[in-house]
């Protein structure tokens, strides 16, 4: 054979090495061929023939071994299954925890939406009710920023110049006076709360008609105070305080008349003080505002504090 370096003995016999190689190839070739024949016959018989019968007989012979092995392995397999199920349970728990977190977030969002809805509904009722001041239209606006600290008594609402809001417009809720607009941008407005040191509103005791000026109290958490109430004026604990706004053909106060502010919680008089010390708790919860009504004068004119 050309190109094949097979060493031959002088007597024409193959070397043992070549014989072994040939034998190997013959054996493997034979086994592969036998496997192919088995595959072909088994495939063609399709479970109904002598080979299938032999296979069934073989399976029956081997079945006891399989049953024995299955019985021996069952505890181990159960243990493996238990461990595996633990791992699966852990991953399931992690997935369910993520889903639970998502659902909780959705529930919280829906609760917030419901609460906002209820707040806006109350504002709407107030705007359409008899207590709403005349000569104003109410623009409902969501609060998008709250006081950042004890010294920043202001909120930001999601309505601005494009909605008709101007500086000094009064801001109320259905519960009472909140403050006034102090800055306006195109889509937002800053509202300075009554509890700010710079705020002041002329007010009166609704029951006794005693006048005064509502200012911030000693701190952001302290009630308001009704300042400049003469000692001879009659004010009582439990009386309601409301704005005492006024208007003339050319001028009007910032706040309309009759907007509720709060309730008198304390009245004190000393010989040295010129005025009665009156503390007022605001009706509106200024620390938890969600939506407010900005009072926009129907006919804007000159105003005075």
């Amino acid at each position, binding site marked *: 054979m050309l190109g094949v370096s097979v060493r031959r003995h002088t007597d024409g016999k193959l070397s043992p090495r070549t014989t072994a190689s040939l034998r190997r190839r013959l*054996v493997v070739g034979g086994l592969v061929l036998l496997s192919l024949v088995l595959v072909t016959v*088994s*495939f063609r018989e399709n479970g109904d023939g002598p*080979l299938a019968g032999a296979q069934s007989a073989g399976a029956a012979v081997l079945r006891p071994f399989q049953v024995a092995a299955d019985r021996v*392995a069952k505890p181990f397999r159960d243990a493996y299954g238990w461990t595996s199920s633990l791992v699966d349970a852990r991953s399931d728990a992690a997935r369910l925890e993520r889903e639970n977190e998502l659902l909780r977030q959705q529930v919280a969002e829906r609760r917030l939406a419901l609460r906002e809805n209820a707040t806006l509904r109350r504002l709407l009722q107030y705007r359409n009710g008899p207590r709403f001041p005349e000569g104003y239209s109410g623009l409902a606006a969501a609060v998008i920023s709250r006081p950042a600290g004890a010294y920043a008594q202001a909120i930001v609402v999601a309505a601005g110049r494009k909605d008709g809001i101007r500086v000094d417009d009064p801001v109320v809720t259905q519960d009472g006076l909140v403050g006034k607009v102090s800055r306006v941008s195109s889509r937002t407005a800053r509202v300075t709360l009554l509890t700010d040191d710079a705020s002041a509103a002329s007010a009166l005791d609704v029951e006794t008609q005693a006048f005064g000026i509502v200012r911030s109290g000693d701190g952001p958490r302290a009630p308001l105070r009704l300042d400049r109430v003469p000692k001879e004026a009659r004010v009582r604990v439990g009386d309601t305080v409301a704005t005492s706004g006024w208007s003339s053909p050319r001028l009007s106060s910032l706040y309309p008349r009759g907007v509720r502010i709060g309730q008198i919680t304390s009245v004190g008089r000393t010989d040295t003080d010129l005025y009665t010390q009156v503390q007022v708790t605001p009706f509106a919860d200024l620390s938890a505002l969600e939506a407010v009504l900005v009072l926009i004068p129907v006919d804007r004119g000159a105003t005075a504090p």
Partner: protein
Amino acid sequence: MRIAPLLLVAAVVQVTVLGGTRLLWAEPDLLLVTVVCIALSAGSIPGAFAGFAGGILVDVMTLGTLGTTSIVLTLAGYWAGRYGETTGRGRRYAPALAAFAISILAGLGEVALHFLLGEPVAAGDALVTAIPSAILAAVLALGVIRLTDAMLSAPQGLERARQVELV
């Protein structure tokens, strides 16, 4: 004949216990590892016979198409035996290396064979499990080779120099 019990146990365990088991994406194939180790210990011809017999056992027990498993295992046993007789002779990592490589090739061969027979096979699944299964086979081979070496202390098929030819 000494390898017959070993083959029977490996085949039964493979079919009864390990069939369908997954350990971290790896499917253990004890029979393939056993055939590879027998071939490394005893040589290519015993390896091929072991592969053929093991394959027939599996096909009989699973009532599958006779011959499909034996083709793959016959070639696996033969290649492992040739590797042990030539390059891998006396090397410590030979069992692990042979089991790793042959596990991948055997997996691909089985997929191709079942595909040719028109049987449903998930090639993607086989590819995903190929490398982890090969690693597991390599680890198993390190243990099984000791057993086969102990059982086949006098390699029967290994080509031993019976005479020296002077050229």
